[in-house]
């Protein structure tokens, strides 16, 4: 049964190929159902494989499909490494992706490029599955680039709008910076181990020289920063909101941004072997990202922008967990986050769909009355992300904070503050969208909203908006994801070792590098209590400010936060000034230096040839003379050398 694992990526690939060939002929709903079916079948296969994996030794199974690059000692195969870690990833990726596909059938209804959307979605899921199932770094990199290129296609899916096209480009280019790190790490790994195969490098990692391990770890971390949108490379993610909302859900919940965390957990023995400051750096970057992204999210008006910064912030928690040596918790939070963030994004998509494309929260309000299912599911996910017990996000976030406290008290405080902010900005979002008074046809709000440029899409001007609940195709995924957003915490409850299913399941992968510590029941309860208090405090503050309006809204949204600490503008300014000059200089060098050398070789060859070809007169007699002269010269030479008199 477990040998069916190759089917898991093969099914989305088949879906991609068939949709590419026949998608347009299938027409509107059928192409969508076909794509959904491919992913759902992959999920069912994953379940079957999961059942089979229990019987494998160490819960690990490898399958070599074929040799891809056989070049002397550099052997790269296409193979599958199925271990507890990739199994968890595959299960939640295919599960969530299947529901996002289903949702997209409703959301993309009426789009002229309906079938093309599912082509890209299937390719996206295929790439992500290659990424997590690959048995060597190069194949992981193929999937890594695959999700990069798919995100480019999907973010700029509505490419007729200039902003969307450049958002896609921004995502791609920013990711390339991280990819550079990944590639350097790959080169270093090959130099150090002579192989890129996880099966060979991971067991040897403890014997690695510390300097080499540090280089690999730092470079991989840079790559992970790009893909998982961490400081300093997070800037692409908020702009990625330009894509259709199911894409945002897919990027944020199931694929793409989790890739960086996955990669770091995959190579955890290398991180462990590296200098200790690498892990500390990862933890600091994670905590800082969690904090800063949360502050930005507090002042955004675009419902999707809030969620985008929230994703950056939550991924920051995962990096904090990795940096604290709590790899299982990073994966745990990744899974719970996938459920509640998937639900939040699909819910926001449902709201936008019902509001005729309006994304500005100032024009919403009181939507719970017209969109009850969306509102209830959204609120489940809201409580989960805010960290209210007993919803799933509470358990994963609290445990990460516990691990951070074990690492350093400062990290714990920063993380806790970010958790407070998280509860605050998510509550602000919910109160603005679903509570309060209905503002969707309020002309003053419309003017205010359209004066701002930080919201990427509005409803068509002048029309009255009539919010409505979304079709069942969109609400069913919401209900399912909300269910898991509530209960996914059961995967890993901290009370007794017996309840830590995920911990025990992932044991073989992380056993070597996992930082273990024991905390007494009292400490555990105190930490749980503190987390609860902070979560509830955040919600309570938001209630005072945004439901009861104790303070005017303008004071709560400082310009510096609306503009995301001007980080984007700073980068733009730098790139237009010194960066531009540097690029011009390197372009000049490329044109004159590199191209000059290449063209020079060509020109020299041609010039030399033009001269040498004059020797060829075409007269047979000349050739005969040449031969004769040559023969005489040769004879004379031999006579002088051989015969000495």
């Amino acid at each position, binding site marked *: 049964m477990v040998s069916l694992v190759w089917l898991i990526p093969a099914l989305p690939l088949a879906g991609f190929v068939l949709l590419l060939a026949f998608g347009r002929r299938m027409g509107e709903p059928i192409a969508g159902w076909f794509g959904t079916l491919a992913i759902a079948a992959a999920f069912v296969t994953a379940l079957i494989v999961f059942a089979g994996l229990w019987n494998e030794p160490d819960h690990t199974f490898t399958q070599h499909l074929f040799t891809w690059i056989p070049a002397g000692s550099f052997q790269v195969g296409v193979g599958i490494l199925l271990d507890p870690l990739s199994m968890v990833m595959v299960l939640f990726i295919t599960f969530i992706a299947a529901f996002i596909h289903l949702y997209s059938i409703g959301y993309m209804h009426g789009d002229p490029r309906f079938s093309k959307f599912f082509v890209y979605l299937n390719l996206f899921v295929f790439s992500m599955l290659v990424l997590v199932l690959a048995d060597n770094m190069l194949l992981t990199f193929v999937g890594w680039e695959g999700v990069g290129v798919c995100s480019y296609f999907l973010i700029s899916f509505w490419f007729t709008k200039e902003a969307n096209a450049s958002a896609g480009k921004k995502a791609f280019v920013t990711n390339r910076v991280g990819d550079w790190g990944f590639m350097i790490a790959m080169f270093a790994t090959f130099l150090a181990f002579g192989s890129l195969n996880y099966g060979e490098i991971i067991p040897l990692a403890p014997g690695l020289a510390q300097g080499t391990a540090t280089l690999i770890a730092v470079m991989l971390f840079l790559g992970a920063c790009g893909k998982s949108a961490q400081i300093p490379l997070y800037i692409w993610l908020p702009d990625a909101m330009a894509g259709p909302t199911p894409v945002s859900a897919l990027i944020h919940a199931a694929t793409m941004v989790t890739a960086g965390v996955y990669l770091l957990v995959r190579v955890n023995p290398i991180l462990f072997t590296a200098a200790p400051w690498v892990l500390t750096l990862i933890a600091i970057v994670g905590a800082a990202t969690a904090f800063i992204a949360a502050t930005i999210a507090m002042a955004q008006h675009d419902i999707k922008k809030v969620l985008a910064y929230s994703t950056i912030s939550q991924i920051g928690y995962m990096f904090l967990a990795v940096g604290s040596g709590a790899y299982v918790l990073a994966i745990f939070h990744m899974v719970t986050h996938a459920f509640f963030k998937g639900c939040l994004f699909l819910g926001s998509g449902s709201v936008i769909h019902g509001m005729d494309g309006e994304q500005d929260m100032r024009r919403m309000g009181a939507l719970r009355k017209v969109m009850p299912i969306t509102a209830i599911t959204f609120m489940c996910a809201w409580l989960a992300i805010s960290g209210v017990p007993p919803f799933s996000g509470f358990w994963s976030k609290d445990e990460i904070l516990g691990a951070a406290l074990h690492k350093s008290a400062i990290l714990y405080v920063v993380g806790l503050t970010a958790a407070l902010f998280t509860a605050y900005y998510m509550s602000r979002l919910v109160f603005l969208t679903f509570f309060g008074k209905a503002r969707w046809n309020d002309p003053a709000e419309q003017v205010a909203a359209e004066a701002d440029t930080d919201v990427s899409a509005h409803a068509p001007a002048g029309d009255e908006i009539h919010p409505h609940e979304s079709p069942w195709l969109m609400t069913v995924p919401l209900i399912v994801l909300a269910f898991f957003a509530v209960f996914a915490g059961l995967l890993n409850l901290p009370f007794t070792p017996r309840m830590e299913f995920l911990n025990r399941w992932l044991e073989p992968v992380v056993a070597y590098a996992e930082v273990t510590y024991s905390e007494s029941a009292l400490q555990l309860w105190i930490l749980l209590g503190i987390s609860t208090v902070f979560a509830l405090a955040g919600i309570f503050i938001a209630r005072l400010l945004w439901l009861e309006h104790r303070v005017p809204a303008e004071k709560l949204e400082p310009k510096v936060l609306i503009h995301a600490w001007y980080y984007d503008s700073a980068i733009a300014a730098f790139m237009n000034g010194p960066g531009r000059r540097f690029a011009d200089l390197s372009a000049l060098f490329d044109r004159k230096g590199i191209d000059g050398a290449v063209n020079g070789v060509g020109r020299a060859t041609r010039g030399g040839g033009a001269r*040498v*070809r*004059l*020797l*060829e*007169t*075409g*007269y*047979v*007699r000349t050739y*005969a*003379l040449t031969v*004769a002269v040559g023969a005489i010269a040769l004879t004379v030479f031999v006579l002088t050398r051989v015969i000495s008199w």
Partner: protein
Amino acid sequence: MLDQNLNIAYLVLSALLFGIGGVGLMIRRNPLVMIMCVELMLNAVNLTFVTFGAMLDDIGGQVIVFFVLVVAAAEVVVGLAIVVAIARRRPSATADDIRLLRG
């Protein structure tokens, strides 16, 4: 002593034949004559081989002549075929007119 002189005479003769063939190849333009000059050179070499074979009492000198004869036959087949083909198209052509390979 007489044999020795005779052998020298053969060698001188073959050198003369070779020289006549070589000079003829270089100065004549009629393709047919040029091929005949090449034949003359080849056979001059054959004569040399046989003479040295006799002088040094070595059968190899005569054996190699057979190889030269075979090569010469093959060369004549190709060469004459080319000459005939050219003569059919342009009866007055000389070797100098055929210089498509000039650089």
